[in-house]
């Protein structure tokens, strides 16, 4: 096996990190509900918050595809702010009404927001109370998606971490994959691993409550996403052990991720090669085709989803790009360390944000591509800089071999488009 040796001294693993504290231009953790509610088909996410929270969910979702989606906001009103007892009664009433209208709901998440946290509404106690009230049909859990505690993808982390303590105990030696991915990619991962003889494989979150994985000291788990630090800690507290690897983006990331699991389960080289050789070649071909426009170009990551470091690894090592700055809202070294160690030294690594100062750096560097949030993309385009909306990287299937070309394509499309329009204008 040709594991690329991490080039320690010259990798980003030891680069200094620029820590910034200023205005952040990042979603709060509530946003994760947009994809979590699609993944968990018998769950409802009830945000206890303000009109702002409801508006965020609506605006981040972009379109209102669903008549009655499995999420909603219990909007706090003047009267709820007056006295605590009222707010709890009101919450109980709204939950009872909701559950009677939606008998399909088996798991209810009470999601804390900035307002509910500032007024110290105790959602953990409310969840206990409501679990008792609606047992055995519905289990009520709580987590925080508030903007004062979480950024964007940390909401999913908080949600999954909240589920860990109630997972059943098991002594079986089982593999659990952690992270909510589109079904198509999740299935690919399971197929690849199953073909190596690894199984049974469980996933957290499962699409239905009854399919939830069981956890114990013999559980080993692998994260599908780099932002699952709290969930990792919660699983480790239950004795489960994490398999460390780069994240499965691109051909290299996917191979290293699979290999780490294969080694854990004693899969021999021949089997590994039999399962992965063909998709590896396919992935490499697809990346080569899609990344032509990326080679030799520079990229600047604004902090958004914590996917920045693994994606920068993919772009620099597999697509021939040069990273100017890799900004992440939060860097969890334990999780992204292996990716960081593969990125050659050079780019500035930054954590946190002071958006105006960072935009000044973008303007100075004038990168060929800036990966940023939706609030910044058009303004930067208007300044003549090509951008890639970061949120698409979270909403689109981009993991594993068969999506590797698509992933490169997401980054190259803005550059190709600009080139086409410039050529057209010159004709």
């Amino acid at each position, binding site marked *: 096996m040709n594991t690329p040796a991490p080039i320690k001294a010259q990798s980003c693993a030891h680069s200094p990190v620029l820590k910034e504290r200023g205005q952040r231009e990042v*979603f709060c953790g509530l946003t994760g509900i947009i994809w979590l509610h699609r993944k968990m088909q018998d769950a409802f996410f009830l945000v206890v918050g303000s*009109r702002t929270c409801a508006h965020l969910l609506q605006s981040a979702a972009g379109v*209102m595809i669903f008549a009655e989606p499995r999420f909603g*906001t*219990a909007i706090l009103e003047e009267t709820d702010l007056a006295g605590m007892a009222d707010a709890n009664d009101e919450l109980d009433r709204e939950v009872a009404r909701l559950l009677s209208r939606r008998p399909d709901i088996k798991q209810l998440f009470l999601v804390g927001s900035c*307002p509910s946290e500032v007024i110290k509404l105790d959602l953990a106690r409310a969840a206990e109370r409501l679990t008792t009230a609606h047992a055995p049909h519905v289990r009520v859990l709580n987590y925080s998606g508030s903007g004062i505690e979480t950024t964007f993808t940390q909401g999913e982390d908080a949600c999954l971490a909240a589920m860990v303590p109630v997972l059943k105990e098991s002594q079986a030696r089982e593999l659990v994959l952690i992270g909510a991915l589109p079904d198509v990619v999740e299935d690919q991962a399971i197929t690849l691993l199953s073909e190596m003889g690894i199984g049974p494989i469980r996933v957290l979150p499962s699409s239905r409550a009854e399919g939830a994985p069981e956890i114990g000291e013999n559980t080993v788990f692998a994260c599908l996403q780099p932002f699952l630090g709290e969930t990792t800690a919660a699983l480790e507290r239950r004795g489960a052990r994490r398999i460390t690897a780069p994240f499965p983006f691109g051909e290299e990331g996917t191979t290293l991720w699979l290999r780490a699991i294969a080694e854990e389960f004693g899969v021999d080289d021949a089997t590994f090669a039999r399962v992965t050789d063909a998709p590896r070649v396919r992935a490499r071909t697809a990346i080569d085709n899609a990344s032509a426009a990326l080679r030799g170009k520079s990229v600047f990551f604004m902090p958004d989803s914590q996917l920045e470091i693994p994606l920068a690894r993919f772009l620099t090592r597999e697509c021939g790009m040069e990273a100017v700055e890799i900004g992440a809202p939060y860097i969890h070294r334990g999780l992204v360390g292996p990716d960081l160690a593969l990125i050659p030294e050079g780019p500035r690594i930054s954590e946190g944000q002071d958006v105006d100062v960072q935009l000044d750096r973008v303007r100075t560097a004038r990168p060929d591509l800036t990966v940023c949030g939706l*609030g910044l993309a058009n303004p930067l385009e*208007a300044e003549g800089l090509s951008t890639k909306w970061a949120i698409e990287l979270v909403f689109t299937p981009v993991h594993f071999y068969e999506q590797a070309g698509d992933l490169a394509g997401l980054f190259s499309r803005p550059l190709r488009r600009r080139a086409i329009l410039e050529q057209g204008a010159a004709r």
Partner: protein
Amino acid sequence: MKLTVWTYEGPPHVGAMRVATAMRGLHYVLHAPQGDTYADLLFTMIERRDHRPPVTYTTFEGRDLGADTAGIFRDTCRAAYERFVPQAMIVGASCTAELIQDDPGGLAETMGLPIPVIPLELPSYQRKENFGTDETFFQIVKALAKPMPRSTEVSVNLLGPLALGFRHRDDIEEIKHLLAQMGISVNVVAPFGATPEHIARLGAAHANILMYPEHAEAAARHLERVCDQPYTKTVPIGVGATHDFVNELARICGVEPKIETTRLRQPWWSKSVDSTYLTGKRVFLFGDATHVQAAARIARDEMGFDVVGLGCYNREFARPIRTLAKEFGLEALISDDYLSVEQAIEEAAPEMILGTQMERHIGKRLGIPCAVISAPVHVQDFPARYSPQMGWEGANVIFDTWIHPLVMGLEEHLLTMFREDFEFHDDAGASHHGGKAVAPSAPTPKFQERAQDTSSDVMVWLACAEKELKKIPFFVRGKAKRNTEKFAAERGMSEISVDTLYEAKAHYAR
């Protein structure tokens, strides 16, 4: 506490952002957590703005709460001033900051910034976005506009157009055309494109045109009091309303009402025989009060539609909308609860909805065509082409927009005639909508669910009657079914035959 799925209006500070983003040289410092920065994308994505909204958020975090959030506000305020050097600043709190009671207005005042700093009090737990627009614009006007000598020529201000408005950009141009014909000049347009210096010059106009009452009525009233400027009450959307507007404006400005309608095509388009099929189309109107009020008049008087339901989501205008509904013999629906709007539409079973993007979704689910007439907006509501709602061109645009979702005259008959044709069945839709005809499919689960809900348990449709019912065009089938059931129930019948169906039809025929 109220469970909300989709909302018509955001929080009031988003209203303030709409005012700030429409203006130039004004900066908004908002005490808010990081997640509230999502609001930027409304402007940069939906409206395709090429600049970030002029808003600096303090983005305080949980760990700051016990410490010095007021200090963070002060630092942010100073840094924003130094970086952007605005002519004036507005400061305020989002819902979270309102709870920690740092008093941004008071803090900013003590900082001694060399520009006007206008504090906003926007109660997040009581009010909504449109209150935020109206109140913010009012506070800016109150702080900056003072009485001053009138311009020598007759001039007016255009009040109300702002960011994320429904066709505000083009309405301004259309009003300017009308004014040019009357020899009235424009003093200031605000908030759209205005600077704080422009706001200070508002007093030079002879009158104000209140384009959008929900965004600028408080400011217009204030200017009437303080600067002695009358303001127009008619919103010139539709042919009749535009005529009235020109006459009203001429009266308050003391000029001749000059009306030049060579570009107006709507009346002839509406009279021409192809439009006969519009007669008595049953429409349901829902949106902001201004646009619903205008649409009701156009629908009835200029399109020949039958208005079967109307309402608005902005409670501030409940009274005029109730009065209007009464005039149409209807009960107004004043609600910001999306599900109750959906229910009302389902019950009224209109042939078309004139609503917001929310009703467009309702229409999709219920299989009812919908044209959008009002905010809240979607990226589709910002077309590249000139597409006003106001004035003569606005009347033309509205005619086109409203009939677009409908199946055209002859096509409607053909659809009925060739009902059994595999390409021409009910679900094929209008030929001008592109997409390919899909094979008749099962109704969406939602609709099915509802259909079952509404069918009475006691009423039995005989097989032949049910077959006959299916021959009725889909856009009136729901109504025919309900009418027949009602007719049968009133006569104590429990079975419906083909005869019952046609007796009911005769009974309800107008």
